């Protein structure tokens, strides 16, 4: 029994540890920012900006998690995001296509790029590192070629709204933003309900549940944080569109990875490909799917970044792949594949986002920012390995 108790606690420790780290980082920056006599760190514009400026990282990280869980890697996502952003810009500005045509078309282009890379990885067993390294170069070049070395922009309002718009207030309350408050309240109830339900299910399956105090302590903190963020956003301009997109995608991917047959199979492929294959799983097809999915998410991220900057540039998306990969590993995924959660990845991406913003407000130079982010990544993974070996 001792063993099992330990492993259940260790599992909770990881998730709680991540959340605790996020809270600690937020608190730390709040104190440091206040100490410099600057306006409150967690004010509405900053909160909004964390999501606007890091939305693409979260979106890329969702796809990257599937790839890494399946035991692969995708280095091309930054270049693919740049290229698809350029495609979207070209279609919108040069061909004057309406946004309802541009978005699906760009997603299809992203999917095709993912398919082209996934084909070699899945069916020819060419290491994904090499295929996507090639893809990184090819699509960076293709971006330059498509843009002719120039920027394309600006965009019509409808396109920009994708990344910088806010949801309309259907309640007509405006100050504070009524719909934002309603959505926040519903979200809090859903989070609490899911927590209680999964705890009840743990007990039913004979998993030692985490201590009641710990569970409610955490749930209260989460609910309070959501209420605070919701109130802040409502008193500013309401929920950003990006946040809605992120929330929907996070829920979808979390459900897919944890509760569907195909999601489960991806973990099996990464855990032991040969055993998965001999258990009747079409491993190639799943790996191929992961790359197609990654391509589409890269296209979505590319459009969002392009819309936010209001122009497609040849340098867009540089280093995105590393941000996404870092978020996945900070979020607790294993390099060897077979493990990692969507929730962990989103928290990982938020940790990076909060650090980016906090350090920028504090006026920390880009040189130190890079070093600190690197050390945080290393520390998160060391923490994991240490826990595993203990």
């Amino acid at each position, binding site marked *: *029994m001792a*063993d*099992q108790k330990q*492993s*259940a606690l260790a599992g909770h420790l990881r998730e709680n540890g991540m959340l605790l780290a996020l809270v600690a980082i937020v608190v730390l920056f709040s104190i440091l920012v206040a100490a410099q006599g600057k306006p409150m760190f967690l004010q509405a514009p900053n909160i909004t900006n964390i999501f606007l400026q890091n939305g693409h990282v979260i979106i890329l990280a969702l796809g990257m998690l599937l790839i890494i869980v399946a035991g692969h890697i995708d280095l091309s996502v930054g270049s693919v995001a740049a290229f698809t952003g350029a495609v979207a810009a070209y279609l919108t500005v040069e061909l004057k296509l309406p946004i309802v045509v541009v978005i699906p078309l760009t997603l299809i282009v992203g999917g095709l790029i993912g398919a082209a890379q996934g084909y070699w990885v899945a069916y020819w067993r060419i290491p994904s590192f090499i295929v996507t390294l090639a893809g990184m170069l090819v699509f960076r070049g293709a971006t330059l070629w498509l843009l002719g070395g120039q920027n394309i922009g600006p965009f019509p309002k409808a396109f920009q709204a994708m990344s910088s718009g806010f949801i309309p207030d259907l309640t007509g309350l405006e100050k504070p933003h009524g719909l934002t408050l309603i959505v926040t309240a519903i979200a809090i109830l859903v989070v609490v309900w899911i927590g209680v339900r999964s705890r009840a*299910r743990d007990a*039913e*399956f*004979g*998993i030692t549940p985490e201590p009641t105090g710990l569970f409610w302590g955490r749930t209260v903190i989460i609910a309070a944080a959501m209420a605070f963020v919701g109130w802040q956003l409502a008193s500013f301009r309401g929920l950003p569109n990006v946040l809605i997109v992120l929330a929907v995608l996070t829920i979808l991917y979390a459900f897919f990875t944890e*509760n*569907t*047959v*195909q999601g*489960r*199979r991806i*973990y*099996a492929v990464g*855990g*032991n490909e*040969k*055993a*998965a*294959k*001999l*258990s*009747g*799983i*079409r491993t190639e097809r799943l790996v191929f799917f992961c790359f197609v999915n990654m391509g589409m998410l890269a296209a979505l991220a590319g459009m969002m970044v392009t819309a936010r900057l209001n122009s497609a540039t040849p340098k867009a998306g540089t280093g995105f792949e590393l941000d996404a990969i870092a978020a996945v590993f900070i979020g607790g995924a294993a390099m060897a594949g*077979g*493990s990692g959660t969507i929730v962990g990845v989103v928290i990982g991406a938020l940790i990076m986002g909060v650090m980016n913003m906090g350090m920028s407000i504090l006026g920390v130079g880009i040189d130190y920012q890079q070093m600190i982010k690197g050390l945080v990544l290393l520390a998160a993974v060391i923490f994991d390995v240490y826990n595993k070996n203990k």
Partner: protein
Amino acid sequence: MTALLDMREISMVFPGVKALDRVSLSVEAGEIHAICGENGAGKSTLMKVLSGVYPHGSFEGEITYDGAPLRNRRIHDSEEKGIIIIHQELALIPLLSIAENLFMGNEVATNGVISWPLAMQKTGELLRQVGLNEPPSAVVGKLGVGKQQLIEIAKALSKNVRLLILDEPTAALQEADADRLLDLMLELKAQGVTQIIISHKLNEISRVADRITVIRDGAAVSTLTKAEISEDRIIRDMVGRDMAHRYPEREPNPGEVLFEVEGWSCQHPEQAGRQMIKGVSLNVRKGEIVGIAGLMGTGRTELAMSIFGRSYGKSHAGTVRMHGTPVDVSTVPKAIAAGISYVTEDRKALGLILDEPILRNISLANLAGIASRSILNKRREAQVAESYRKQLAIRTPGVQQKVVNLSGGNQQKVVLSKWLFTNPDLLILDEPTRGIDVGAKFEIYTIMKELAEADRGILMISSEMPELLGMCDRIYVMNEGRIVGELARGEASQEKIMALIVKDVGRAA
């Protein structure tokens, strides 16, 4: 003579298994000491304790070597004292030359710069010593296993070996190569090298060994001198009980033909044109346990895997019938759908996802069975796993436990559960009791018996002949990719099986 090595009361516990239980072993200077015992009896573990794979402190007991206590922190410590172990799986790097392999980690170098002429010259001398006529620059991967074995011995000699441990050195060798190796062992003995040989092959042991220690279920049962060595005695010590009680009683009641293979052939996946399976035909009836006997590397696993969704080989030919109707087994999902399950030989590499919990491993091959419209029902998953845990007596605190923490026998039960959950008509079991202790073996046999009584067909591949003889209603004998004979329960014996194989080898030669 004085004892060179004295291991006293060595105990070693792995999670779930007591691998060694107060084993004592004394080896005298200049002798060849054989250790024998069944698979999983603890022979290899004992040698790993000696060589420092398991460092001092990870086991109980004391080791005295050359008059002083031996406390290895790592393998290097024992090697420095001249204790060299040659493992069953050779540790050579196939893409490097003989000379490079010989001095790997022990390079002939001054200040980190390797002197190749000197290394080549030394390699030449060592190769002459072991009687291997190959240039030092030859690439190891291109030599046969027998020659590779000699290179391992040469490597040991280069490290000034005093105690050489050979773990089943002849298991993968042809007879001529094995003979040469045994001769070399006697030569080394004449030069004063003390040796320990782990082997199952009693004829080899009686040829070279001065004394034998028999290990059973992690404990040393007896140490026999040359005069006392007899096959009967060794077998009795190894097995420790009568054959009759090692297998559950069953009354075979075979029904109609369930599974039929006709003219099954396939080629090696990489070497084009090399026929691995040659026109195999066999059948299994409902409620029947059928065995496939044969030496290692005769294509038994390849046959099973090629039938199970063409998981091995290419250019497949032949028909598979279930219940008299031809079925498509061209992919694993199709084979599963046809009612066939294949429990792999290597459960860790091919059967389980070690880092995942028991319940996820059990549901893996039939996720549809716990899902509706592709959405998993985790409650059902837990119930299914729980019911198999009870049914097969998987010893674990709970089905959330990762399988990596289970003992071999319990891991095998998880694999069996996984396949039973696909509700197969035919189970192909490939070495189902390899690496499992005797008690768990009996449980696996009992499960097999119950499956047969439930009218399922079982095709069992095994290298342990007593197991085949004890469990099977019929035994096919396989050699070099062909079926060379079929024996019914009453007429089968170890001698007859060997005779069929030997006759076939003679015919091929």
